[in-house]
């Protein structure tokens, strides 16, 4: 019985991910409009964009290989799978026992790898440029990401996300410098991984500064819709991952169905805050030059390492 229930929860969570990710992106855009004093398109605009793209035909380059056609589905699938691992509403997830946080990082890495391959597949200049930049950033961001994640798993003595949520959410409330450092590192990595402002700008297609947009420049129609949707999910997933690792209070325990509505409400509130915080960072900072990015990610790595060290030294 409880097993069926947990599978149901899993399905529910994936549905939530698919539907809420565009809303979250819409929310971020809306807040940004407010912050800049512009009129907004509403938080549901991303849905309309996706619909439009799904209705359009695909234009494929002549020399596109199977990698190019296959990548959007893979990226989309990886994002959905990642969403099934992270405890968003409840820790009672069947997949969470089979895949831990390292697998999660690997999933993101895989989709990034294929995106980069697809970027180079057509052989246009921008695609290759975007790919090379993306891999540069990835090679720096991933160690930092793992370091930050390890710090949290040290504090909770497990690499399973469900376990981590339970330990941190139900443990005594104590001041932990290690988690504070890890959070700081995580925020910096999130900005880099999801292509937000100081590293990349998601709203422009300015030739010389593009990173992520450069790689997917050749996509159109359904493919582009999937990639865009996966991108939105990635932002959403990083937000919920941050919430699950650092502010897990309110996520429902196993078998506790009554706590679900409350968990949902809390999640919405936390996400709203997270989105507002993201906008705050993005409007407060200017995009940095590409060769300053290693320094930016270096500091993320430093924070993560300091978090780990202060776990050993101070706790």
């Amino acid at each position, binding site marked *: 019985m409880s097993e069926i229930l947990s599978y149901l929860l899993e399905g529910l969570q994936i549905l939530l991910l698919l539907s809420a990710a565009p809303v979250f992106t819409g929310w971020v855009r809306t807040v940004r409009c407010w912050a800049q004093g512009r009129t907004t398109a509403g938080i549901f605009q991303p849905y309309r964009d996706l619909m439009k793209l799904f209705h359009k035909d695909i234009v494929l380059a002549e020399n596109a290989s199977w990698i190019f056609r296959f990548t959007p589905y893979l990226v989309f699938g990886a994002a959905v799978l990642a969403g099934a691992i992270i405890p968003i509403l409840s820790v009672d997830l069947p997949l969470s026992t089979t895949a831990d946080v390292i697998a999660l990082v690997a999933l993101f890495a895989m989709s990034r790898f294929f995106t980069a391959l697809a970027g180079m597949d057509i052989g246009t200049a921008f695609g290759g440029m975007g790919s090379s930049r993306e891999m540069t950033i990835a090679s720096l961001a991933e160690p930092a990401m793992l370091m930050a994640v390890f710090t949290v798993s040290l504090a909770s003595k497990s690499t399973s996300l469900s376990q981590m949520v339970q330990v941190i959410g139900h443990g005594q409330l*104590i*001041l*932990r*410098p*290690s988690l*504070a*450092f890890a959070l700081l590192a995580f925020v910096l990595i999130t900005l880099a991984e999801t292509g937000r402002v100081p590293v990349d700008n998601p709203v422009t297609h300015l030739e010389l500064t593009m990173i992520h947009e450069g790689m997917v420049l050749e996509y159109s129609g359904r493919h582009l819709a999937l990639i865009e949707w996966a991108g939105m999910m990635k932002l959403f997933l990083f937000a919920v991952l941050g919430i699950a690792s650092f502010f897990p209070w309110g996520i429902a325990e196993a078998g506790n169905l009554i706590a679900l509505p409350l968990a949902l409400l809390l999640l919405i509130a936390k996400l709203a805050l997270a989105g507002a915080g993201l906008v705050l960072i993005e409007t407060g900072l200017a995009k940095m030059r590409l060769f300053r990015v*290693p*320094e930016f990610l*270096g*500091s993320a790595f*430093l924070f993560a*390492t*300091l978090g780990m*060290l*202060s776990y*050993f*030294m*101070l*706790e």
Partner: protein
Amino acid sequence: MPISFAAQLNSVLAALILLTAFGLLAQRRIYGLLHLFAWQGLFLSISTAVVGYAAGQHHLYISSILTLALKVIVLPYILHVLIIRLKIQKEVETLVNIPATMLMGIALVIFSYHLTSPIRELSTLVTRSTIAVALATVMLGLLMMITRKHAVTQIIGFLAMENGLFFAATSATYGMPLVVELGVALDILIAAFIFGIFFFHIRTTFDSLDVEQMARLKEED
């Protein structure tokens, strides 16, 4: 405020002190350095007061106030005045290889952690976990003095090292006897005046505070 909370607060402050030490290592702008140094002093002062409260050592309140006065107000003020007088507000130091310096810094932190482990095991104080951070701060100050080539930066490194030493005294032994602490504070104050004079000498003789230019005294072959 319960004791365990005080200990946690002290850990957080220790972490912040360590963070500012790393910040000093990477900061390029003179004013940024000054602000970071003042922040470090502030964290140190609060931490001293917290330890004083948690351990019931009231002489630490005096040390805390002394730190606040000297490291947060007087020294930054002196440096501020010097920077304005020397017209170097806008100076930005060119730093080579920040990531390598940072990695070295991390290695130093680990080294300090290992070096102080016997003390941590022997100590019974609530502050024993912060000794490693204190030594790390000393080491990072040292690293800063070695890697940076600007006279003001080197002095700030020296003072940051001093902060680390003070923190070490607080966390290992609840502070040195008051005579010693006052004496150390006096020495630092004298040192502040001396480097103040020095800045002007260096400035008038070398036209810049970049100590890279000081390379005349070498072993001749």
